[in-house]
C-alpha cells in the first residue's frame, strides 16, 4: 500500500513537472528552438570542456539550443501520447465491450480483426499511412491511435464477458434493460479502474512509438522539435557529438519510466487484493 502510494507520488511529481514545462515552454526555454547559429554549432554541454551555461545541454549541428528543443519537443510527445491513447481507447473499448456483450458474429468479426491487426507490424502500418497521407501531427495521432486499439479491445472483451454473467447485470436485464443501457450504465463504469491503468501505461508506450516513428522519419517532419527528430539528427553525429542523441534518449527514458512507475502504482493502489 505504501509502496503503491510512493510510486504514485513520485510518478505524479515528475510527470507534473514535465507537463508544466511543456505547457509553459516559451517561458521556460532559454532560446528559440528553431534559431540557427552556425558559429555556435556542436557546442558540448556545460560540464564538458568547451561547454557553457549559455547552452546547458549544448547545441546541435545547426547551432540550435538542445535544451530548448527538448522542452518544445516534450509538448508534441505528450500531446501525441495522450491524444493517440484517447483515440485507441475509444476505438478499443467500444469494440471490446460490443464483442464481449453481444457475442456471436459481432464478437467473431471484432476479435478476429484484433488478431489480424496484432499480427501486422505497427511500423509497416505507419509507413503505409504516412506514405498515403504524408507525415503530420494529426496523421501521427491517427496512426498511433489505430495501431494501439487492440490492447483495449482484448482486455475489455475479457472483462465484459465476465461482467455479463455478474448477478447485477443479469438483474438489470431481468428488469428490461436494453443492451445499450446495460453496456453504458452497468458494464462501462466497472471497466474504469482497469482502463485508467492500461491507458496510463499506454501513454508511455505511445510516446516511445512516436519517438521511434519520428526517428525513422515517419513522424512530424523536421525541422519540428520532437524528441524523435532530435534523436534522428544526433544519429549522424553520434561519435562527434553524442550529447545530441543522448539528451533526447534520456528525456524519453525518464518520461516513459516515470509514466510506467505511476501506472504500476495506480494498478497496485486500485487492486482490491493489496
Amino acid at each position, binding site marked *: 500500500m505504501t509502496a503503491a502510494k510512493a510510486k504514485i507520488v513520485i510518478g505524479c511529481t515528475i510527470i507534473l513537472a514535465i507537463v508544466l514545462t511543456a505547457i509553459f515552454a516559451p517561458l521556460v526555454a532559454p532560446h528559440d528552438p528553431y534559431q540557427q547559429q552556425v558559429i555556435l554549432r556542436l557546442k558540448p554541454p556545460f560540464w564538458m570542456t568547451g561547454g557553457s551555461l549559455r547552452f546547458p545541454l549544448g547545441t546541435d549541428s545547426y547551432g540550435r539550443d538542445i535544451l530548448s528543443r527538448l522542452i518544445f519537443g516534450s509538448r508534441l510527445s505528450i500531446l501525441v501520447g495522450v491524444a493517440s491513447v484517447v483515440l485507441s481507447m475509444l476505438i478499443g473499448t467500444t469494440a471490446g465491450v460490443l464483442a464481449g456483450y453481444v457475442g456471436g458474429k459481432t464478437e467473431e468479426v471484432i476479435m478476429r480483426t484484433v488478431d489480424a491487426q496484432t499480427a501486422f507490424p505497427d511500423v509497416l502500418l505507419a509507413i503505409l499511412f504516412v506514405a498515403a497521407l504524408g507525415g503530420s501531427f494529426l496523421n501521427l495521432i491517427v496512426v498511433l491511435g489505430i495501431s494501439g486499439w487492440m490492447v483495449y479491445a482484448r482486455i475489455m472483451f475479457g472483462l465484459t464477458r465476465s461482467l455479463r454473467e455478474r448477478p*447485477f*447485470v443479469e438483474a*438489470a436485464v*431481468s*428488469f428490461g434493460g436494453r443492451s445499450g443501457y446495460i453496456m453504458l450504465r452497468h458494464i462501462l463504469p466497472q471497466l474504469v479502474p482497469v482502463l485508467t491503468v492500461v491507458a496510463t501505461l499506454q501513454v508511455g508506450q505511445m510516446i516511445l512509438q512516436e519517438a521511434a516513428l519520428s526517428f525513422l522519419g515517419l513522424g512530424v517532419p523536421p525541422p519540428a522539435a520532437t524528441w524523435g527528430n532530435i534523436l534522428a539528427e544526433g544519429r549522424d553525429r553520434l561519435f562527434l557529438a553524442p550529447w545530441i542523441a543522448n539528451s533526447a534518449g534520456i528525456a524519453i527514458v525518464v518520461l516513459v519510466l516515470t509514466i510506467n512507475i505511476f501506472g504500476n502504482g495506480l494498478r497496485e493502489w486500485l487492486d482490491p487484493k493489496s
Partner: protein
Amino acid sequence: MTSARANIAEGQPADDRLLSVRDLKVTFLSRHGTAPAVKGVDFDLARGTVLAVVGESGCGKSATAMSLMHLLPRRSARIEGRMLLRGRDIGALPEREMNDVRGKQMAMIFQEPMTSLNPLLTIGYQLREPMRYHLGLGREATQRRAIELLEMVGIPAAEQIMRGYPHQLSGGMRQRVMIAIALSCDPDLLIADEPTTALDVTIQSQIIELLRQIQRRTGMSVIIITHDLGVVSEFADEVIVMYAGRIVESGSVDEVLEGPRHPYTRGLLASIPDIDDEGERLQTIPGNVPNPLSRISGCSFHPRCVRKTEQCEQAVPDLTAIDATSLRQVACFHPYLPAREL
C-alpha cells in the same frame, strides 16, 4: 389458500391462465457434450396463484425460470417448447420485444441479494430506472413511487436510502430493494429464484412474509423456486416437484405435502429435521442428483429409489393424473398410496 384449492378442483377456464408452459426443454451445450437440464416440462399458472418449484440443486428449477426470462446465454443454451404468457409465446420473442416483457409483465428476484445490485449506482437510480423505461414516468413520479415502494417493502427512511449505495445495506435490506424494483412496474408474474437462500433464518421468514403480503395485496402470480419446504407450505398454493429436469409430482401444496405420492417427494419430506425427534438420525435420500451429462435409462430417479422395479430401469414414467377429483399428477410407476389410505 382454500380458495385456490377450490379453484384447482373446479378446473380453470383457459383464459384464467397467465402462463402456460408446454414441453419446455433446456439443453446446455458444452465442450463435453450436450447436457439436458430440463427435459420437457408442462405446467399452467393461474392468475393470482403462487406456484412453488422444489427439488435438489441441479434439478432444472433455475434453468426453467431463467429460460422464461430469456436470461440463459443463447450461445450455450438451447431452449425448445412453448411458453405462453397471456396467450403470447414469449419463447419465440426477439430480444427487443422481450425487453418490454421483462420487468413489466414479469420480473425476477434472485438468489444473491448481495451482488444483484450494481455497486456503482445509487439505490434510487436502480429503483427508478425500470419505471422510467417501462412506464415512461418523469423524475417526480418515479421519485414518489420509489419512496412508496420502499415503504411497502418495509424500508424506513426511504429518501435517505435512495441516495445511498448497495454496500450500505444488509443482505435482507438489499433483497427488499430487489423486491421493490421487481414490483415497480406492477408485473403480472414475479419469479423468485431462491430469494431467501443467502439470508439469515430470521430474515428469511420476514422476506417470505413480505412476499406473501404483497402477493395478497396485488394479486400477482408468483413462481417461487426453493428447496425449503417450509417456504412452500407457508407461501405457495401449488407445488411442482422436479427431479433431473422433469416434473415428478405436482398438485396443491396441502395434498402434496400431506400425502406425497412420488418416492422422491417422500424422500424430500423425510429429510426435514423434526424438532421432536431428538437424537434420531436425519433421513436422507441416498446418492446424488445425476450429472446432466450422463444418460440414465428409464426413470431418472430409479438409482436412488427404494421402490424401483425392472420397469423403472427401462421406461420413463409419464406425468399422469392420479385423482379424479384434483389436478394432482405423479410420474411414477409405483406411487405411494394416498395419505388417508396409509
